[in-house]
Every structure is written in C-alpha cells, then in structure tokens.
C-alpha cells in the first residue's frame, strides 16, 4: 500500500489529482505559444486572456440566465491539450497536464487518473472504463465558452455588430462582437442548466435578430436514450444581456430535430423542422411510414410563442438539415431531402403561397439516390432579389456523386442541369449559398486526407457562371460546416475549427 500511496501522491502533485489550483501561475509558456502562433483573432483573445481571467457573475434578471466569461484561459489550455492527437482522455492528461488545469477539465483529469489508479489496483477488472467517454470529454473541452464550441452560428445585428450562437458544455450561448469577430463580449447562456444538446453534424443553434433588435434562438436536444429530439426556443429583449427560459417549440412529444429559423421582412419568425408525429398513427393504421414530416410554425411575437404546428408534407429524409429562404413577404421556401417512391432520397423544394399554405413539391434534381440510410448532409438555399432560387446539395447515387448546384428562375418549377461542385477526389461537402446584389457566393469543404479547406466561388451573373474556386481557409483538425453571412455591404465566411477557433473572414467585394 505504501507504493500505491506514493504513486497517488506523485500523480497528485504532478497532475492536480488532489486539487492544485493557481493554474495561471503554473502554466508553461508553451501553452500560450500554441495559440499565439496563429496570430489572428484567437491570438488576440489569448493575449487579452492573460490579464483577464475568468469572469463569472450571475445576472439578476432574465429567468436564471447567467454570464460566463469569454476571456478565459481554459480554451487555450484545452486547445493545447486537444493538440495532443489521439489517445484517451487520461493519456492526454498525462501528456499535457498543464492543459487540464481548468475547472471542468481538471475534474475530468482527476476522474480519469483515478480510473487509472483503479486499474492499477484492480488489474483486468476495469478495462471497459478505459475507453469510456461522454460526448463532451471525447472532444476534451467542456467549458461553456466559444473556444469549446464545435458549431457556431453567426448573424449580423442592425447596428452592425455580430452575434454568434454556439453550443458548448451543454449550454447554448450567445456572444457579441463589435469588431467583426476579433473579440467577443462575455457569453450569455440561453439555458441556465446544461441540457443534452443535439450533437449531430447537421444540428446547430439558430439565431436571428429582428429589426427591433429582438434576438430569437432555437436549438435541438435529445430527450431520451433513443435520441428522440425536442426543439426549444428562447428570446432576448435586452440585446442578449438575458434570455427567457427556453420553451418547447411545440407541445407535441414525438421526436423533432433539424429546426431552422428564418426572419420574414415584417419581423415574423418562421420555424421549419423535421417531426415524427405522424409516424405512430400511420403504424396504428397498419401503414408503413418512411422518414419524418416537414413541420412549420410561425411566431408573431419575436419568439415568445409559436402558432400551432402544421405539417407541410410527410416522408422527408429524417436526418438532414433544411434550407430555408424567402421569395416574398409571408412566402418561405424550404429545400429538403425527400423520400420519393422506392426509397429514393433526392431533393425537393416547396414554395409557400401564403404563410400557412405550402405549395406543391417540386423535385430539384433526379439523382436517384436509393438508400435506406442517414446521410446527415443537408442542402443550402439562397434566393436572389430577382427571385432566382439557388440550390446546392449532396448526393451519392450511382449516376451522380458529390456536391451539385442548380438554379431556378420559375419558383422551383424547373431547375438548371446540376453543376458539379469541387474536386471529385476531395470529398466536397456541406455547401453554403448566399445571394446579394446580383452576386451568388458558394462555399463548401474539401478534404485531402490531411487538411480540410473551405473553397469559395462567386457568380456575377446570378448563378449562370461561377469563378474558379479559391481556398478561403484551412485546418488540419475537426471543423464545423462553413457558413456565409453578409452585413449588407460585404460577404464573410464564418467558420469554427478545433485548432484555430472561430474565424470571420471577409470575402471579395460584392460585384
């Protein structure tokens, strides 16, 4: 036992097993250097973080919302820890102890090292625990801060500042930047208590801001072990200082996922999502039911409440995000992967004739991707001022594989021949479209086996022809989907990657 005690003492001294605090004092210079070398927004945050440790103060108002410090040393440390590629959490703790001295990471390290100690004491009985991870710790970063986010959704506010909604540590958080993403105010949590957020690749918190400055947020959660989903919405009337307690978007208890939020010109908020409420009744009738349904609801009070849910169509693919845009006031357009006859999962577009009347289903392209599987790879839709629809999507049929783009000048009644996007041998994926001032921007990811690149191309003739793709950003670690955003004057690529943190990169000037 003396040997074991000695070992535990050694581990405790070396890795804060028994709680050595003062992380700032004992942190090695290399932990900073890892971040500083990028010299960008992340680097700027790193430098300011030196003099501004954790800021944490409870907000008195706002239904229990609270502030969490954005200028926190942990993201840098945790990121340094994650840079130790491969290995389980306890291995990373051992390899990079300095990276795990922040509150939750320290706790995770303690737990993992205790497991190691248990394995030493009871060899062969704890092997199952060796590879036990929860969602958060698999990423090695569970702090509710921007640097720990895997998904970041941006939006510009009428005053020109940028808001981002992101998920980290079981919270959906909102932060504001007044310098185009270089620095952010302390994040504000939308959900006071951590929730089991939908962590699928096509899930992300949604955020829109009305002309009056009211912020509307929506996000998906898993409510049981079978991954049934529930969508919540919240709002802020004070510019994001506090958020109302999240409310279910619909009272129905069947699974809901892949919500999308879009803002109409009059300030009405349009919610569309995939909903499984029609599945059980169909089965009771002895009918088969493929996929989910395209559901929608409106909020006329800035996200405080939503109108009754309506089902536009049954039999959508149940695991792909939606593309939503407006073709006129009260006329949303939804692009989605539908399950056509014979289990073919191709894309369709629905144009609403008024706020509650979805028009006919129109097929974007006959790809004939017959598959009984979950692609988790949804489309993107943009509508230009002249009403032209721009659609981009992924398919993997025998005749058509990869990313494709098409346009429609007749509200989706017909689309141009699909145009292949990106390098065929580089897994082009996750397209994003933006139309503004006669220009159309298209961004996507490519992966060459080592690095992920975000490619961008622009059309100056409303989607008839595009420029050659250029590389806008790269990473050699995990990354979010690329998103395009505009402040009305300029187009930006918004991209979160594990190694580099959040980036808002201006693209070329509008044509």
């Amino acid at each position, binding site marked *: 036992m003396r040997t074991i005690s000695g070992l535990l003492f050694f581990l405790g001294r070396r890795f804060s097993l028994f709680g050595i605090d003062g992380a700032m004092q004992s942190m090695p210079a290399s932990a900073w250097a890892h971040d500083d070398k990028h010299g960008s927004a992340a680097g700027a945050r790193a430098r300011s973080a030196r003099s501004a440790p954790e800021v944490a103060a409870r907000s008195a108002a706002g239904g229990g919302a609270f502030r969490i410090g954005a200028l926190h040393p942990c993201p840098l440390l945790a990121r340094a820890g994650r840079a130790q590629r491969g*290995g389980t959490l306890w291995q990373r703790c051992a390899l990079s102890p300095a990276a795990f001295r922040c509150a939750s990471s320290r706790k995770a390290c303690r737990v993992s090292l205790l497991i190691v100690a248990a394995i030493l004491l009871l060899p062969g009985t704890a092997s*199952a625990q060796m590879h036990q991870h929860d969602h958060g710790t698999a990423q090695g970063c569970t702090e509710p801060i921007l640097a720990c986010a895997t998904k970041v959704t941006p939006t510009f506010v009428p005053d020109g500042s940028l808001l981002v909604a992101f998920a980290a540590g079981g919270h959906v958080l909102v932060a504001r930047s007044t310098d185009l993403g270089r620095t952010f105010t302390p994040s504000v949590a939308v959900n006071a208590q951590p929730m089991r957020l939908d962590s699928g690749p096509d899930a992300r918190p949604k955020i829109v801001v009305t002309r009056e400055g009211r912020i509307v947020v929506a996000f998906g959660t898993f409510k049981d072990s079978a991954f049934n989903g529930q969508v919540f919405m919240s709002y802020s009337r004070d510019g994001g200082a506090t958020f109302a307690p999240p409310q279910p978007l619909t009272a129905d208890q069947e699974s809901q996922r892949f919500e999308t939020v879009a803002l109409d010109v009059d300030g009405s908020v349009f919610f569309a999502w995939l909903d499984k409420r029609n599945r059980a009744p169909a089965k009771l009738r002895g009918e088969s039911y493929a996929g989910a349904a395209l559901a929608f609801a409106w909020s006329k009070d800035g996200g405080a409440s939503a109108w009754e849910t309506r089902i536009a169509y049954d039999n959508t693919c149940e695991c792909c995000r939606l593309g939503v845009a407006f073709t006129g006031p009260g006329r949303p357009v939804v692009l989605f992967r539908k399950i056509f006859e014979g289990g073919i999962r191709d894309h369709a577009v629905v144009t609403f004739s008024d706020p509650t009347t979805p028009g006919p289903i129109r097929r974007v392209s006959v790809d004939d991707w017959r*598959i009984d599987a979950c692609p988790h790879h949804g489309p993107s839709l943009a509508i230009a001022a002249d009403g032209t629809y721009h659609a981009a999507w992924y398919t*993997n049929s025998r005749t058509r594989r990869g990313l494709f783009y098409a346009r429609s000048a007749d509200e989706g009644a017909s689309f141009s021949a699909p145009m292949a996007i990106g390098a065929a041998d580089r897994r082009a994926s996750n397209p994003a479209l933006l139309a503004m001032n006669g220009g159309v921007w298209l961004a996507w990811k490519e992966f060459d086996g080592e690095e992920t690149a975000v490619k961008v191309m622009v059309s100056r003739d409303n989607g008839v022809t595009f420029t050659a793709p250029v590389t806008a950003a790269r990473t050699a670690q*995990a990354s979010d989907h690329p998103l395009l955003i505009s402040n009305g004057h300029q187009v930006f690529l918004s991209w979160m990657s594990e190694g580099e943190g959040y980036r808002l990169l201006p693209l070329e000037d509008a044509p």
Partner: protein
Amino acid sequence: MTKRPLLALLALCMVPPNLARAGDLQPFMRGSWQDIRHTHDGQPMVVHFWGLTCGPCRVEMPQWGALLAERPDLALVTINADLVSNEQASAAAMLTKSGLATAENWIFRDSFVERLRYEIDPQWQGEIPLTMLIARDGGVTTLEGVADLAQVRDWLDRQAEASR
C-alpha cells in the same frame, strides 16, 4: 519533460491484458483502419459500420447477430461510426442485445471524423449503415445502406470455395 518517458512506461504497464473482452468496444482512432486491415490480412473479413441514431441500423443489427451465430466462417468487425457520437455503454448494450458481443467491435473516438472516414474510403461521407466485404486478396465490395444478407452469405460461400 524528464518525467514523460516514465509516464509513458507507467501507462504501458497499465494496459490490461483483456482489452478485447466481449462487450468492450475498442477506440477507433487515426491509424485504426490500417491496424484492422493488417490484423486480418489475407483472410476474408466483413466490416459493418453502424450507429445508435441510425434507424435502419437498429433494425439491421440483430440480423447480423443471427448471421454471426449461423456462420462460423464470418469474421465480423463492427465499427460504430455514428454521426452523433455514441456513448460506449449504450453501444455495447446494443451489440450485446443484437448477439454481437463476440464480434470485433470498435467505436469512433476522434473528433476529426473526416480523417477517420478518409482512411477507410476517401469517397465515404459517413452515411450508415455501410458494409464492406473484404476478400482474401484485399478486394473490397461495398454495400451501401441496409445489407442484403443473402448477398453476404453468397460472398462467404465464394470465399470458402476459393480457399479450397
């Protein structure tokens, strides 16, 4: 820094001998695919990719369990490649329930999933279920979506005949 070799040695000593115990899932990380291919080199192998959030997968898993019980010549490797990261215990429970606890079971454990998929098949974007029939000579037949197990049986028969 000087203590790290000692720690590495310490970590090595801690690896228990029964890592691949029934019901355990091995962490699939960078290089794991090459390790699996190397381990089974020269022998026919069926690799099945699945996930708990994938409805078709949950229906298909017990069928694989039945096939494993039926065919002693089936070298089955399952890889949990769910696009929503699965917890180890839940994945293990599903494997056990499906009669697959004795298969060689792995689970994705790297946030950079694009790289994991690329090592397996540069064209694969992550759709599951997915099955790969890997022949003695290394030739790969990919079955997208729910596999037709009659096709798998035929393939196993052909592999057995080829070895005679």
